[in-house]
């Protein structure tokens, strides 16, 4: 019974000692002047453009020209 108590105490002591090992840091490693957040992907990186920057540029330019009534409505 005595050895069982010692063993239980030993296991508890070891568990207490290593309790912090699985803990993940919850504070960011702050570097002043540097963006600390999650990385972002470019707007053209996913469907429907799938990384084709030129195609995306063309789509954006076409939409931009739709704001120009001198193009939409001829003189």
């Amino acid at each position: 019974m005595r050895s069982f108590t010692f063993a239980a105490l030993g296991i508890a002591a070891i568990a207490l000692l290593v309790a912090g090992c699985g803990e993940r840091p919850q504070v960011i490693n702050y570097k002043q002047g540097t963006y600390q957040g999650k990385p972002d992907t470019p707007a053209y990186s996913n469907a429907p453009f799938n990384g084709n920057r030129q195609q995306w540029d063309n789509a954006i330019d076409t939409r931009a020209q739709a704001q120009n009534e001198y193009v939409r409505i001829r003189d």
Partner: protein
Amino acid sequence: MARMKFLCDAERCIECNSCVTACKQEHEIPWGVNRRRVVTINDGVPGERSISVACMHCSDAPCMAVCPVDCFYKSEDGVVLHDKDLCIGCGYCFYACPFGAPQFPQTGAFGVRGKMDKCTFCAGGPEPDRSAAEFQKYGRNRLAEGKLPACAEMCSTKALLGGDGDMIANIYRDRVTHRGKGGEVWGWATAYKLPAGGTPGAQPGAPGAAPPAAPPPAGGTKS
């Protein structure tokens, strides 16, 4: 490389607030937060002018400079975005912004301030493009769909232009040439500084003004 900008034509804005409505509807903005608003100067007197104001996505954004947790970044298209997971809602950016763009939802009792919310140029934020998390935090990502901001595309008089700086400056210049007046562009000098080779006070729509500056190199890092 695109350098996204807004341009509001005070000669055309009729204060209809459709840009405000379009923004709220597109991103399901909660009550009390206005990413875009219409400001009227000299209201009710001859010569009154209205301007649609939101984040101008400044070239050298003061909000980025003052943020104590550095949650701002600039996309490669020159759109100033921020990570809401990092924002602590301190409000420094609100005081630094010359356009009053940062908004803070008052969600709790005793004036508790939430995380900052602002115009994203309809470019979402640092979450997977067009994901539910991105929509919930930042609103719809229209740029990823090949579209321009809803406010600019919705504008009934095309007073509000949004898109690549060179392109919208050309549209505006063409417009000023046709009508022969109203070449002043509100907010551009504050937000985008002087165009390369331009003269102080020169505006993109003014006769003899140089085209807007080339986009500064930016690759998702804080400048």
